[in-house]
């Protein structure tokens, strides 16, 4: 048993639902007790989908267990077939459904529907959501594209001269982190290269579309967590190569352009020359000097975590102090990436372990999931969200891809805004002795609604200064020490007074650093000297 407070991934049948809900004209009949229908609201409320997910639950109850639950499954499947008239059906069981061992696959086959019925067997007590999505997509591709496979040993026909190359985009699902916009961005980029998109799957595809997967020249794997397995099979059976580079960040997008151009036999240089992205220039501008070596902690699914570490380190000039993932299946890739930054990867699905690590590392920015957003909030550290599990906020009304050149622009803004802003940080250093800097002074971007009882006169001047403090939800309104680590050291009164001279929005950090320094050096009483010793120690 594993004690959990929050979980990063749902059960594997939710992964199957993400595939089914992303697709059109596919229906999922799920042998599950009442209560498992909660999963519908992930799609209708979090993603704000305007339709119910295409899932029929058998919703068996205790009184059914003594009777014929198999018949219950068959009537649910029959009704779903008649009502929704899907092109194909997937059938399976949720965790409890699997315990009653009714064999949905066999039962559904016996109903003799005239459409493909694909059993999806998901070991609910071993695996999780992303694995479930991957397995479901793989089984669908096998079952539906498989019949079109060329005989073993045949070579792929050469593309006719003058004909544009075609590829499939694999991996986007319902409830995916910015999948909707990534598809648009990558389709556009491929179009600029003269490459057509044959099928996007699972998102937006019908089962009929899946029969055409083999017609593409190669596959673009956007999200390996979902698409690797299917892409490997397509490579084996249809001899379609697939891309390895994930186009998140400027450098990775450039590499991606070269990789797909190679596979399609086109010239990448005109597209690379014409590519416009503001990230590199914004990073070079003096305003970004303050970003130098900002200590950043990164946690998310493997794809987004690895890509984020590269952008943070190479494109924004941060220092990666922690990198981790909850995707155990991709633990090796994350470990390899972490080694590049001289850190040990944190591979865990235990939220409490991640929290402990963040507290220990004292990062200046957290890039994580919604879970890390909460961790960061508790610790008073700025945070930006880079990965699923998703939240309603991760489905913005505006266009906000993560992939491609526009994705890089979006990432620059999203990560930098929670931090103190460029020139403002320099000014803060210059004005740090100003008498107007006191606890009541409001960050300029926060309205009066967030005001702690502040002197209006002071606020006016403070607001005029471009001080725009970090989005420390907790810290701004509660300048008291933020979740200080247990400490043996005691503050001398003068040192405490000196600490109060430090602007409140960095005081928490100064306090933590000083206490940490005192503990590590066996200092029992923190004096003014200790404070400055610590400042010197942590100075860069």
């Amino acid at each position: 048993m594993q004690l959990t407070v929050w979980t990063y991934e749902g059960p594997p049948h939710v992964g199957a639902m993400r595939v089914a809900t992303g697709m059109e004209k596919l229906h999922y009949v799920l042998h599950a007790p009442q209560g498992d229908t909660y999963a519908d609201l992930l799609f209708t409320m979090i993603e704000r989908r305007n339709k119910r997910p295409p899932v029929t639950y058998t919703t068996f109850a205790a009184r059914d267990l003594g009777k014929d639950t198999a018949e219950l499954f068959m009537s649910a499947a029959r009704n779903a077939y008649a009502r929704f008239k899907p092109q194909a059906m997937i059938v399976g069981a949720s965790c409890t459904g699997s315990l009653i061992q009714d064999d949905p696959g066999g039962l559904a086959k016996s109903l003799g529907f005239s459409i493909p019925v694909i059993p999806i067997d998901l070991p609910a007590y071993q695996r999780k959501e992303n694995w479930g999505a991957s397995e479901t997509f793989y089984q669908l591709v096998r079952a539906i594209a498989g019949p079109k496979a060329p005989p073993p040993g045949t070579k792929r026909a050469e593309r006719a001269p003058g004909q544009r190359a075609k590829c499939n985009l694999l991996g986007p699902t319902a409830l995916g982190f910015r999948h909707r916009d990534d598809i648009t961005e990558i389709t556009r980029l491929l179009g600029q290269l003269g490459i057509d998109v044959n099928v996007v799957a699972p998102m937006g595809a019908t089962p009929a579309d899946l029969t055409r997967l083999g017609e593409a020249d190669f596959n673009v794997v956007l999200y390996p967590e979902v698409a690797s397995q299917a892409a490997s099979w397509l490579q084996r059976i249809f001899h379609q190569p697939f891309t390895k580079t994930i186009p998140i960040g400027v450098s990775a997008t450039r590499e991606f352009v070269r990789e797909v151009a190679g596979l399609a036999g086109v010239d990448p240089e005109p597209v690379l020359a014409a590519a416009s992205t503001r990230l590199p220039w914004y990073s070079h501008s003096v305003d970004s000097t303050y970003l130098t070596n900002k200590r950043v902690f990164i946690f998310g699914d493997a794809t987004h975590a690895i890509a984020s570490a590269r952008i943070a380190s190479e494109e924004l000039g941060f220092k990666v102090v922690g990198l981790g993932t909850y995707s155990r299946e991709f633990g090796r890739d994350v470990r390899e990436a972490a080694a590049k930054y001289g850190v040990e990867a944190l591979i865990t699905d235990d939220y409490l372990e991640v929290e402990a690590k963040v507290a220990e590392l004292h990062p200046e920015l957290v890039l994580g999931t919604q879970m890390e957003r909460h961790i960061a909030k508790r610790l008073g550290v700025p945070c930006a969200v880079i990965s699923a599990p998703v939240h309603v906020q991760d489905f913005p009304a505006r266009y906000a891809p993560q992939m491609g050149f526009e994705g890089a622009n979006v990432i620059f803004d999203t990560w930098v805004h929670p931090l103190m802003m460029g020139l403002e940080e320099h000014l803060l250093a210059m004005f740090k002795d100003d008498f107007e800097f006191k606890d009541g002074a409001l960050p300029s971007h926060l309205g009066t609604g967030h005001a702690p009882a502040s002197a209006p006169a002071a606020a006016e001047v403070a607001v005029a200064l471009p001080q725009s403090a970090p989005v420390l939800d907790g810290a701004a309104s509660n300048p008291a020490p933020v979740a200080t680590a247990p400490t043996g050291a005691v503050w001398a009164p003068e040192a405490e007074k000196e600490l109060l001279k430090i602007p409140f929005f960095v005081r928490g950090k100064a306090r933590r650093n000083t206490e940490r320094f005192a503990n590590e050096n066996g200092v029992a009483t923190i004096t003014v000297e200790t404070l400055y010793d610590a400042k010197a120690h942590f100075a860069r």
Partner: protein
Amino acid sequence: MTVHVTGCSTATADQLVSREIRTESGQREVFCGLTGIVWLHRKIQDAFFLVVGSRTCAHLVQSAAGVMIFAEPRFGTAIMEEKDLAGLTDANDELDRVVTQLLARRPDIKLLFLVGSCPSEVIKLDLSRAALRLSQRFSPGVRILNYSGSGIETTFTQGEDACLASLVPELPAQTDTKPSLLVVGSLADVVEDQFARMFEALGVGNVAFFPPRKSTALPSVGPNTKILMAQPFLPDTVRALEERGAKRLAAPFPLGVEGTTGWLRAAADAFGVDPAKFEQVTAPNRARAERALSAFKSELGGRRIFFFPDSQLEIPLARFLSRELDMQLVEVATPYLHREHLAEELKLLPIEVALTEGQDVDDQLDRCRIARPDIVVCGLGLANPLEAEGITTKWSIELVFTPIQGYEQAADLAELFARPLVRRAKLVA
């Protein structure tokens, strides 16, 4: 509007028997009883709820809890894994380990509920024995109880019933012979305080609320206890209290002016409060509530409303909306209908109303689309899809989480139904 419960009924006992109730069984779009944890953990402030279940349970509780409002809430899941399913002794050892780990982490916990789930029920993991064993180990510091919130046993609000029923054996026996009143069912603290003041003014002394805010302050129960149900979904709890000698007072539920008055009157009558005094104490509140409600009458009067089954609050809500706001009831569905506990409500419900017990969600959606009601009350899974079809909805879950009982909340309750209609009318794009 003058409201009296007695003499105001629209149906006779005979008609009640003949009232037609459609019973449906099929796909249900209803939360399971685990979801009760979301409000119970706020109510009993020193309790922790540990679901013994699957990853699905953990995911459900997390999703239903509004996706992480609290950085570290007082609930969690012991997720069963392959190895736990292999042999039961193993699962018990594992559970002990997880509970020990949890209590070490949260020394503030005084009451721990082991909450059974579908998988733990199906594999017949004996949580009552586990609770007993762990209680011996951690007493007197921590009390450990168990109940089932599984979706094969319970729907949504029934989780609270199972939880409270598990607490009943822990209630101390009443020692004095003075009659006491026990209000049963979670109410928001603010509502509880209003009712406490009301009972005080009426001279109904010795009032306790169950569940209590602190698990260390359990009310006593015995033959002199009179039960007033604050929620309609508590049959097991009430039965367990009756087995301890308590007597249930027949009353409508305290929703709207009429329901609140009937509810308070049931207590007042049982405690021999002079009718004149009752009138004197409640009149100002009634008048104030009616004044506040009148603002919504023009908004809601004549509008047609359709209830999907969710919390078992549907019947009292429908009674309030039809009688105090003149709304027309197209269909009122409830996951379960307790004929006896809802008898006072059913008397007040228009006789021609279509009542449904249980659900077949696809058939019900068909009926709803044909009826085209002005507003639909439904769960979160259905709300946005119906809105997208142009049907105005009210999320039913808000009716469980929001303080809606009593005089002071009557207009708030009406507003919950008026707001979606106002919104739809405002939006032009």
